[in-house]
């Protein structure tokens, strides 16, 4: 599994949007993923194939349905490779701080 494939797959905003949608709701069919997206079914199919090749999406067959799941393992491996040696709790605290400061309703 090449890390190049992971970064290449993540470089496209449409593919990141598909991952966001799976993060919000895991195990969707192609039809469900296409709903409300400004992309053709063919484009979504193509993007999903690239995500699956990069191992960022894992599919399961359940009866006649093919369900798409976000596979967090490659992103976790990126984290382990470059940030794993730092104290995870500190990084999480910084990340939480950023999230809370950037919230739209945050009052300074």
């Amino acid at each position, binding site marked *: 599994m090449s890390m190049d494939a992971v970064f290449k797959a993540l470089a496209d905003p449409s593919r990141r949007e598909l991952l966001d949608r799976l993060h919000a709701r895991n195990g969707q069919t192609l039809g469900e993923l296409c709903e409300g997206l400004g992309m053709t079914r063919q484009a979504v199919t193509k993007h999903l194939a690239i995500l699956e090749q990069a*191992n960022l999406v894992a599919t399961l067959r359940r009866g006649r349905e093919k369900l798409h799941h976000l596979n967090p393992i490659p992103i976790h491996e990126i984290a382990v490779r470059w940030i794993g040696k730092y104290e995870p709790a500190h990084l999480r605290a910084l990340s939480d701080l950023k999230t809370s400061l950037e919230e739209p309703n945050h009052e300074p």
Partner: protein
Amino acid sequence: MSHDRFVYVTFIRTTPEKLWEALTTPEFQRQYWFGMHVDSDFKPGSPWRLLFEDGSAADAGEVLEADPPRRLAISWRHEWKPELAAEGLARASFDIEPGDGTVKLTVTHEIDRTGSKLIEAVSGGWPRILSSLKSLLETGQSLTRDQTVTRAA
């Protein structure tokens, strides 16, 4: 029926036999599973228990399918946090497929309900366990060797 399900796929440079051994042997498990290990003979119908270092159980269940070195399926019942235990039985499966120099491991964890706190809880643990397992099999060193969890944690 509605499910909550996570699917994790990792590719490991090893053999299906070694991966099966790593999944089912306490000496291996302790090295990548935060110091925990599984007590079971991994035969269909047998019980299994995931044990903390102090011997108390975190999770338990029954072996549903065991087809070494290809597939292991187990029922999964949480044992110590009441709100998670109340969700009842989940299922986990481990599918091992040999490929070109690597072995594909697919871990599926699912429960017949939505909004499951159990599935949410395990979703954070599996990526760390699987990355550590991969590291152990490929380099001889796990990533969680110095990290253990205890019941109090």
